């Protein structure tokens, strides 16, 4: 399956990525089952582009981000960064890749050491990679703090002295200081209040424009993803079920799950009355995903074929990929 035709313009290409987590049990601590967190996901991201990834809790968004960065090893699949396989990269190449690909987390507080000044945390990556003298590193930290809307004096302060929004700026500064090409943003604004969330989203947009950054932007909030992304992928139970440009996806969603997701979002306008698609039940367990189409137990369009045949992830319209036997605009 090809999800792209030319490789050269793509910074990142992910092909058939799988990640199974073993569940151990019994006296021998043998693997008794597997969590199929990612079960064959393919997508690509162009240079300077933002790909949004949405889906409900547990569908595999974070696992995607982490395997792409090789923070956890995948079970199968390929990840190409600038055409080279990240998963087969030598130690030396991996060092360079670790600079090029950075991550920003949902809760920067949990990822910042509470006992050291934030300036040290930001400089840590530079130090590990032996970049610059201590003096130069200090300069870079100062610059990057200003760049994210804090000031250089903040580098001597500790994480607890900052608000949630400021901590997220520090998390961004820490990624930015490495001058990366790709930043995986895993729910970077989910913990923030809307007025602060807007500040951080605008900052991410500005940085992308000025520095030509590429983002893999993970979030469960569709409105936020629509706002920031050029293209959007929708995940369900370890699979990508729909992938399209922002405009295609939001004006003409084709997968029943995407449609349900969109219709479920409460809009801040009481004059709008919409027909709701209320899905029944919960997302099934990724240990034993349903046969055929994984969405079939909750899908109101399901037919017999859906119970047996896993629909292929196909390009139904130029640039618009869907995995559904009955995809329709």
């Amino acid at each position, binding site marked *: 399956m090809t999800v792209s035709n030319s490789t050269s313009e793509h910074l990142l290409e992910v092909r058939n990525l799988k990640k199974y987590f073993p569940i151990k049990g019994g006296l021998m601590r043998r693997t008794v089952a597997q969590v199929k967190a990612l079960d064959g996901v393919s997508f690509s991201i162009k240079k300077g582009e933002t790909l949004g990834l949405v889906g*409900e*809790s547990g569908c595999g968004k974070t696992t995607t981000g982490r395997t792409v960065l090789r923070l956890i090893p995948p079970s199968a699949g390929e990840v190409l960064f600038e055409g080279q396989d990240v998963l087969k990269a030598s130690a030396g190449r991996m060092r360079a890749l670790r600079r090029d690909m950075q991550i920003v987390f949902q809760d920067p507080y949990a990822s910042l050491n509470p006992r050291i000044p934030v300036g040290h945390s930001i400089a840590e990556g530079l130090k590990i990679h032996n970049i610059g003298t201590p003096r130069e590193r200090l300069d870079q930290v100062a610059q990057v703090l200003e760049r994210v809307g804090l000031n250089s004096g903040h580098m001597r302060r500790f994480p607890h002295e900052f*608000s*949630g*929004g400021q901590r997220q700026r520090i998390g961004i500064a820490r990624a930015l200081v490495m001058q990366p090409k790709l930043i995986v943003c895993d729910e970077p604004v989910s913990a923030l*209040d*809307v*007025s*602060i*969330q*807007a*500040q951080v*989203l*605008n900052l991410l*947009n500005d940085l992308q424009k000025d520095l030509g950054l590429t983002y893999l932007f993970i979030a*469960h909030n*569709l*409105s*936020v993803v*629509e*706002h920031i992304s050029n293209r959007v992928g929708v995940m369900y139970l370890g699979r990508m079920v729909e992938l399209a440009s*922002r405009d295609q996806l*939001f004006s003409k969603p084709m997968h029943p799950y995407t449609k*349900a*997701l*969109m*219709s*479920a*979002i*409460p*809009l*801040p*306008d*009481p*004059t709008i009355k919409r027909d*709701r698609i*209320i*899905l*029944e*039940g*919960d*997302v099934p367990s990724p240990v034993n995903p349903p046969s055929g189409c994984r969405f079939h137990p909750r899908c109101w369009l399901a037919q017999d074929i859906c119970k047996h045949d896993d629909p292929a992830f196909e390009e139904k319209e130029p640039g618009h990929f869907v995995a559904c036997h009955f995809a329709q605009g």
Partner: protein
Amino acid sequence: MAQSDVLLKLKGVKTYFFTDEGTVHAVDGLDFQVRRGETLGIVGESGCGKSVTSMSILRLLGKTGKVIEGEIMFDGENLLDLSEEEMRKIRGNRISMIFQQPTTCLNPVFRIGEQIIEALQIHQGLSGEEGNKRTIELLTLVGLPDPVRRMRSFPHEISGGQAQRVMIAMALACNPELLIADEPTTALDVTIQAQILDLMRELREKVNTAIILITHDLGVVAEMAENVMVMYAGRAVEYAPVHALFEAPKHPYTQGLIASTPVLGNVRDELETIPGQVPSLLNPPAGCRFASRCAHRMDQCTQEEPPLIKLEGDRLVRCWLY
């Protein structure tokens, strides 16, 4: 409005926390009322006092917190004057609550069925047999799959959405006059949120329960509430019927809040932002609490706090522009 229509009325309520760092003015003079069957939405950013407001009504403030001033009149009686014993009879009976983390409200060592049956015994005096039957009815009503089997589950064996449905079933068990729902869907996925909001609407229609719906999600408020109170730094800054509020927000903070929310299907290049951040409630500023972030600030604003000013159409706004 007939007096008997008013179910809950807060007058000048101040709730402070006395901590090592100082006194937290968490709720600093709050007035509002809820009519029978009405849904009042309370919105505002984290730390503005939404949860403390609900905990003040329920008198679940813990050791460090205290309502130091004001009245909380529920059906004509001041909840602050009741004994702990009398308050216990009201909680979970005439006033029910659901919270953001449903599992923390369920007792982890008892099966789900047992907990609902117990609530029915305490509040409605049902026997075990009757309670059992009614519990199955309630769990079916809230759409829990396979209720008979689920009754035997422990709280950790069910998902967040299912736990929230159980909490609503518990609330229903008591046919409450007032339901306080504090961020009831914040921890849930949108498709599950849609199910829970639907359920709350049903509850309102079937039992005519008044609901205080606390949330930071303007979409949820727009969809559920009849009237909305916007809070900022321990104070109500605006009060309006829901249509009026979204059509023409009056307070600069409400305006900023609405403009900074990304709206599905309405992409803008830049989101509006509210500069700065919420002031500390240890030492709330004199004058208007929003002044440090307000684009319309005037000299007067930092000197004297504006009162709640009455506008046409049942609206109130705390701002010197009006």
